């Protein structure tokens, strides 16, 4: 079973849905990124998505690009990702997913990556540039180590591809709210609502919506139809502007009204 899916289902049956919070590992440095992630959970984030900084992040908008570039410049190494997961899971019970572009996993070794992730207590991977068609090695390694694997679904995906994403995913399916990259948007596309309903028809039981969600109102709106809402750039911007107090406050504001 999937701890991530369990948490999402529990939040859903408690009347709201899950808040998934993204922050990059190593930004502004490893220790602060761990504290910031813990602060997210302490302020209402249900599932953590920790970004692995990468040199060529094609799915990321300017806020996350700046942060991950800074993390790399400050000396981020892949092993810091596992160290962060271990440190965070030792302190809070929320499940932790790593969000990583594919080449770092390939170079580390897909099996070795899965093993070290499991040893650190990581729940699984979100893979923005790996579609199930190319994922044979990861499907096998994640089955073997019982890790979650979150694939993306887009408004432009065909029904057949949505079914494939649902079948291949474990934990949740990442519904891309709009055609674009990460970053706050004033209104989350109505395409998201349609996509989530198409995913349900394709058999999805756990669907989280991401890209462009930055306010508590948007989180509540998304949770009317989806099982979880993913917030990234708004949290990263808060961390950049005001450090841990600011990111804690931002998480509290996003989760306000979700708890009953």
């Amino acid at each position, binding site marked *: 079973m999937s701890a991530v899916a369990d948490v999402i289902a529990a939040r859903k049956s408690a009347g709201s849905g899950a808040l998934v919070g993204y922050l990059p590992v190593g930004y502004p440095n490893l220790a602060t990124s761990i504290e910031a992630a813990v602060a997210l959970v302490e302020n209402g984030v249900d599932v953590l998505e920790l970004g692995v900084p990468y040199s060529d992040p094609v799915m990321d908008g300017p806020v996350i690009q700046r942060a991950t*570039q800074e993390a790399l410049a400050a000396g981020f190494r892949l092993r810091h990702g596992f160290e962060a997961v271990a440190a965070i899971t030792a302190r809070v019970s929320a499940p932790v997913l790593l969000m990583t572009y594919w080449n770092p996993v390939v170079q580390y070794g897909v099996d070795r990556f899965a093993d070290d992730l499991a040893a650190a207590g990581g729940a699984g991977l979100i893979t923005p540039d790996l579609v199930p068609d190319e994922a044979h090695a990861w499907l096998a390694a994640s089955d073997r180590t019982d890790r979650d694997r979150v694939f993306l679904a887009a408004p432009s995906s065909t029904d057949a591809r949505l079914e494939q994403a649902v079948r291949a995913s474990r934990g949740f399916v990442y519904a891309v709210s709009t055609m674009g990259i990460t970053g706050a948007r004033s209104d989350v596309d109505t395409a998201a609502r349609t996509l989530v309903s198409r995913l349900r028809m394709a058999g999805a039981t756990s669907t989280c919506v991401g890209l462009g969600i930055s306010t508590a109102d948007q989180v509540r709106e998304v949770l009317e139809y989806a099982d979880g809402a993913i917030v990234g750039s708004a949290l990263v911007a808060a961390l950049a502007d005001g450090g841990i107090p600011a990111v804690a406050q931002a998480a509290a504001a996003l989760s306000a009204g979700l708890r009953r």
Partner: protein
Amino acid sequence: MLRDESGPYFGEYGGRFVPESLISALDELDAAYTAAKADPVFQAELTHLHATYTGRPSIITEAPRFAEHAGGARIILKREDLNHTGSHKINNVLGQALVAKRLGKTRLIAETGAGQHGVATATAAALFGMECVVYMGEVDTERQSLNVARMRLLGATVIPVTTGSRTLKDAINDALRDWVANVGSTHYLLGTVAGPHPFPVMVRDFHKIIGEEARQQVLDLTGALPDAVTACVGGGSNAMGIFHAFLDDPTVKLYGYEAAGAGHLTDKHAATITRGRPGVLHGARSYLLQDEDGQTIESHSISAGLDYPGVGPEHAWLHDMGRASYLPITDAEAMDALRLLSLTEGIIPAIESAHALAGTMKLGRELGSTATILVNLSGRGDKDMETAGKYFDILDTAALEREVESPVDPSSLGVKE
């Protein structure tokens, strides 16, 4: 037949490592390209454009005075530098722009390194009445400012890319981000044989005319196939273009010359196959320059067009099977070859193409005077005059300084306000 390989994989290379949001666009493009390839109307339209606009077939030129410095081998240049816009890039651009038109796209976006692909794309956009946005690393907009001006004159918007290493790889990242967001109206006119399927195959197919023409031209001239075919390799489009027709001619050796910058054993080079290892970048599995963690390493070359830490998957495949050899050429070797061709033949090559010439000089000395070598002269050097002027210290800097200190009064030149 090696020539029949048409993706999505070349051995273990190629594929599609992209966000799900792009898959439908790649499927749409693949279907449209497959249909176009089989459509005589499309082929006739492209052939007509090449005959009346590109200037095809491009000629071949023997280079006997240059050949004296290449072991006396017979050196034949395929003159892609004479194409409209100054390089081979136009072959692919016109083909893809026609496909984009069939798809009903109204906006072309492109990445560019040296600016040649950007200029070619801006040209096609002007010709077909389409909007054009070109992403270009900030470093490259500075060293290729002439091409920036050309693109703007052609009506394109040039966006300097300030992320990462601010060169070609970052321009590709930004073009991919733009495409994800605007895929309905926009065709991403990728300029090399890299990227996700169908780009490596499609771009190669639009350039294979280079080798098909040259193969026949060399046969007509010499009565035999060449002993070797050479080209520079960045992403590898001009090399695949000239290699392809010869892939199944076992007597013809194929050589790709990579940019070795300050030397392939230093940390300032772009010798991807020589020094890299397999991984995933920009949507495909191929060789790339990367650190232990799989972070892309910034490449270095005096030539903006070869300054790329990846290479097309078909080259990776040809390398692994030993069908083609990939060797490093330093900045200094390339610049010497650039000057030599200029002095001996009156042809100023692009710095990119000068890497092929430098490799050919070494190869000619190895193969000896009985050998015939076909070189892809992929582009002309006009765009490189500032770099070459500084490198050889032949700019009249004193005159330039005088002008900065006291600008020439236009009225003294008889120019009216």
